[in-house]
């Protein structure tokens, strides 16, 4: 599986160990919050000291006061114990809170950075990355990191500190007994190592199964109307059951390992304590150690073995966080669309006239001009090719120009490349060869905001944002009122109770297809664009509605350049120039009468349509 396929593999949890480079990069996100981290570590250190002093204080109380029966001053020691405890808990609070703040801040920053990056990725990225995968990057993957940052990172440091501190204190108090305490350690390490690998594998497998389960779920929620229409609830359920069962089986396997793991570790720890008790008891009988020391030892031994228990868990968290961060960085490292790059050349801040060295053009500059444009879509990586491999050419040397104030209609069969022309003008994709000029400037030299502020696009699929009708229309710009009345949106909206404040639902699902198109049309008009781009926006609007829109266009088009991918003759007739596309080339262009008179493809198409219609 090549790297290019990374995005298609839901949970490629890495089997390799800890990737330090990745970890270092991850830690870079912590750097801005180092104050908080330092605070967390400081409270951790103070808390650990307070915590570790507890058993020692108990030893002092027993040896100095309880055993000899001397009560004077004992209250002081007890108060000291209490103070140590209060300190430990106060620091625990600070540490826990600081760690959460740290984790959440890093996550917030990372999530916003990812989102900002995602917004600027080329359209091709979205063409080949399913929504569900992208969602996972910004949700579960980020959450896995959060777990590492808030419960893994600092507490691992804390555990290590407790381990080292305990070992040091034990060795200081009685080296021989300390060694006895550590005796169970090698066996324990062996046991942990044995299970660790299996746990890791089961964990990975479980995540993979869960990802598949969730992908299935998402798809069946989006496509629920199809499931219903074909009465396939039963079949979907059976398939879901199978995936669900696989996931459950894997999670049970993991549970079994864990069930063995925790009690096992505890058992070894208890063996260590028993050993300690035996050796210590004998020493006590010989008077080699005091009673208080033995009690303190027993307490410390517990503190020593507790962190070890969690080590495997911590390692898992680290592993899956690293796997997640690898996928996150993959998004962050994806190249942004070239249009977001700073515009080369000196034309950056000049508003409109071309400042290229060429002499000022004598002839009027066309509003839109394609000069020998070649283009092919990148081949989807699923077909086994490299991610940036080119597919077959879609445009093969397209040249045309449209003057300001003119309406151009592109006609031709499905797959002739009509939509592509509009996408290229919006700079959704980069062309392979040739030039695209907007009012005489190469679109590569026009800042993105300016480019897209000049153009206004009506997509084939009228996507609406959830929100009200009015919100959707005003996304485009300020000329809302005119846009609403021209498209007739205000007319049909006025029949609803909530009027323009009617909520359109997810993807505009509460509106009919035609209404959605009208709204998306109004949205495009509301920004009062210099160039209007229409992509078959009227294809599933009935003739009456379409006629209304055509009338509206008639009112709005003068003085505005428009390029329309047209399927209907009414649109074509309204155009000043018609471009007939065929297999990636512009074969004919001109006005309707000119093209008819020329007797080419257009003429043939026209008469064929006419004859067919009158024949029935």
């Amino acid at each position: 599986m090549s790297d290019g396929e990374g995005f298609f593999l839901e949970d490629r949890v890495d089997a390799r160990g800890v990737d330090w480079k990745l970890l270092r990069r991850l830690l870079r996100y912590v750097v801005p919050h180092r104050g908080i981290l330092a605070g967390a570590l400081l409270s951790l250190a103070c808390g650990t000291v307070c915590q570790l002093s507890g058993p020692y204080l108990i030893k002092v109380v027993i040896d100095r006061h309880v055993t000899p029966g001397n009560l004077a001053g004992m209250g002081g020691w007890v108060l000291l114990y209490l103070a140590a405890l209060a300190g430990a808990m106060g620091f625990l609070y600070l540490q826990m809170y600081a760690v959460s703040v740290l984790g959440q801040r890093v996550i917030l920053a990372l999530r916003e950075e990812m989102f900002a990056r995602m917004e600027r990725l080329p359209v091709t990225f979205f063409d080949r990355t399913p929504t569900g995968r992208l969602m996972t990057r910004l949700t579960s993957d980020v959450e896995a990191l959060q777990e590492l940052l808030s419960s893994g990172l600092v507490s691992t440091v804390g555990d290590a500190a407790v381990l080292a501190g305990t070992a040091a204190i034990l060795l200081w108090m009685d080296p021989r007994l300390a060694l006895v305490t550590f005796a169970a350690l090698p066996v324990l390490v062996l046991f942990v190592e044995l299970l660790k690998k299996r746990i890791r594998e089961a964990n990975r497998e479980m995540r993979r199964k869960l990802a598949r389960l969730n992908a299935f779920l998402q798809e069946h929620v989006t496509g629920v109307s199809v499931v219903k229409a074909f009465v396939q609830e039963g079949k979907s359920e059976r398939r879901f059951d199978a995936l669900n069962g696989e996931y459950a089986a894997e999670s049970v396997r993991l549970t079994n390992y864990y069930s063995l793991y925790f009690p096992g570790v505890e058992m070894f720890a208890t063996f260590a304590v028993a050993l300690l008790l035996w050796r210590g008891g004998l020493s006590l009988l010989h008077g080699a150690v005091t009673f208080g020391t033995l009690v303190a030892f027993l307490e410390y031994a517990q503190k020593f073995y507790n962190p070890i228990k969690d080590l495997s868990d911590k390692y898992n968290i680290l592993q899956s966080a690293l796997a997640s961060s690898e996928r996150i960085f993959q998004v962050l490292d994806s190249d942004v669309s070239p249009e977001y790059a700073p515009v080369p050349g000196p034309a950056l801040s000049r508003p409109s006239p071309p400042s290229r060295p060429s002499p000022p053009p004598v002839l009027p500059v066309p509003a839109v001009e394609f000069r020998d444009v070649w283009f092919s879509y990148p081949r989807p990586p699923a077909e086994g090719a490299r991610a940036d491999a080119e597919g077959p050419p879609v445009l093969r040397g397209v040249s045309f120009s449209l003057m300001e104030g003119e309406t151009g209609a592109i006609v031709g069969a499905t797959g002739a490349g009509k939509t592509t022309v509009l996408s290229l003008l919006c700079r959704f994709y980069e062309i392979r060869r040739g030039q695209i000029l907007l009012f005489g400037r190469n679109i590569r030299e026009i800042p993105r905001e300016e480019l897209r502020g000049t153009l206004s696009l009506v997509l084939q699929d009228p996507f609406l944002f959830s929100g009200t009708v009015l919100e959707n229309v005003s996304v485009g710009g300020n000329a809302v009122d005119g846009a609403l009345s021209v498209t007739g949106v205000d007319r049909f909206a006025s029949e609803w109770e909530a009027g323009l404040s009617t909520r359109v639902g997810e993807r505009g699902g509460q509106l009919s297809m035609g209404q959605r198109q009208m709204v998306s049309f109004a949205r495009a008009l509301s920004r009062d664009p210099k160039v209007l781009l229409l992509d078959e926006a009227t294809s599933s609007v009935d003739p009456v509605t379409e006629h209304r829109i055509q009338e509206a266009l008639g009112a709005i088009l003068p003085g505005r350049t428009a390029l329309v991918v047209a399927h209907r003759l009414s649109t074509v007739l309204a155009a000043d120039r018609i471009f007939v596309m065929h297999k990636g080339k512009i074969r004919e262009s001109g006005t309707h009468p000119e093209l008819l008179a020329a007797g080419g493809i257009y003429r043939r198409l026209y008469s064929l349509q006419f004859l067919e219609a009158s024949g029935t």
Partner: protein
Amino acid sequence: MIREAVDAVSAGRAGGAAAGEALARAVAFMALFAALNASFRFLARRSLLVTAREVEQGVRRHLFSHVIRLPLPFFHATPTGDVMSRMTNDLTAVWLFLGPGLLTLIGTSISWVMAVAFMLRISPSLTGLSLLIAPLVVLLSREYGRAFHRQHRLVQESLAGMNAALQENVSGIRLVKAFALEAREEERFGRQCREYYRHNLAVARTSAAFHGAIGFLAGAGVALVLYLGGRAVALGELTLGGFVAFNAYLAMLAFPTMAMGWVINLFQRGNAAMGRINEFLRRPTEFEGKGVAAPGVLPLPREDATGDAGEPPLLEVRDLTFAHETGGRGEALRDVSFSLRKGEVTGLAGPTGGGKSTLFSLLLGFHPAPPGTIFWEGRDAAEIPLPELRRRVALVAQDPFLFSESILYNVCFGRDALDPAAAREAVSLARFRDEVEEMPHGFESVVGERGISLSGGQKQRATIARALCSGAPFLLLDDALSAVDAGTEREIFDGILSVRGERTVLFSTHRMASLSRCDRILVLAGGRIVEEGTHDGLLSRRGAYYDLYSRQMLARELEDSS
């Protein structure tokens, strides 16, 4: 527990008399008990956690079954991200309580009871004193639980909101780019993120404070015992061993008491999550209370029925008036009446928003039609069980949805099993066969999420093939050919007409060329059937249909002939 008992014994003996063997025996016991303890814990963990996993699996299954049976309007009103969130995050929260949470709860309860019992044996008065903190712990836990419940609900809600915002952005990315809305979207998403961040921090604060407070209370008990118990030993009221053991028991209680905080945390979260899940489960499914009374499963309509005059029409719609529940958009259909005979091909024309899609939804039972308005072969649709109703009808929707599976799977989606022969036939009728066979894997080619690897026209033809392949006697095509050119539409229509007589077809389109070839045409405008008749008959009436027609004659579709 056992360890401490032994500890007390050995300590007592060791303090009193020199008895090495006793010590060795005690230690051996301790090791034995440790091994036994570990085995029991393994079994307990396993059985409890595995059961919890099974419960999780069961709930997930139940939830899925329930959700896919919820009425369609539910899905229009509920963002996908929200549905997903409940079926994933909330379910995990439930598991965390049922598994690890419950395990800890049981484990700590046993520890508590045992420890307290042993403590009572050693010194009832000390036990009473040290348990004085218990009510405080309970009180604290309850207050904490309340705060935590509230905060956690907010967290889950803001998470769902964040997911929904994200999902919407990804689906509408072209638009975002075309309108240069990146900054607006970032702001919107950022707001959701910050809200999520804020709620999470509130939880963290509460959680940290609770942990600290509980830990302190538990430790205070130890201090109390250290002081009072130490005094008792010094005064000879308590043996040293007893004192040590007592302290050890109390220390053992500290961890479970703190763990209780965690359990409460999990419980509240699980509870909040279960509440959200139950919100879905409480909604009635569209199958509930419908057709249950019908005696047995009714047979599908006979395929070879002779259309004699006495037989009721295949479909009759009588005075159907319908308004959508949401949106307050008035009546979508008003007094719609028409009937379709078996084997007829009927065209449905009319303006956008005229009620065509609503009519189709009602025929499929996506929205409940009022009783006595829709009749299938003389039977009131309101009394026909939904599965049976839908098995009669194959819908091709405006928006072609495919599953990320093979073409074969998608085409055979309406059948119980994969049937390559039937699929091939359906694909030929839908004029999609050549293209499928040219694909590298033919019928086994996977179409990608939502059919991402197919063109708009290919997706529509795939959905038509799916409808044809389902074998349903009644075909509903809801403007299903908008993305294919006129020539292809004509060919597909040829395919559909070739099954005329066997299948009854209701076909909505804006293309006159197809309408003119239908047996009959209904014109639906403003929620009413304004005209009905044959193409020629309607043209000669010079009414609404003629209007549509003449407009389109003027605006003939322009397509490449080659």
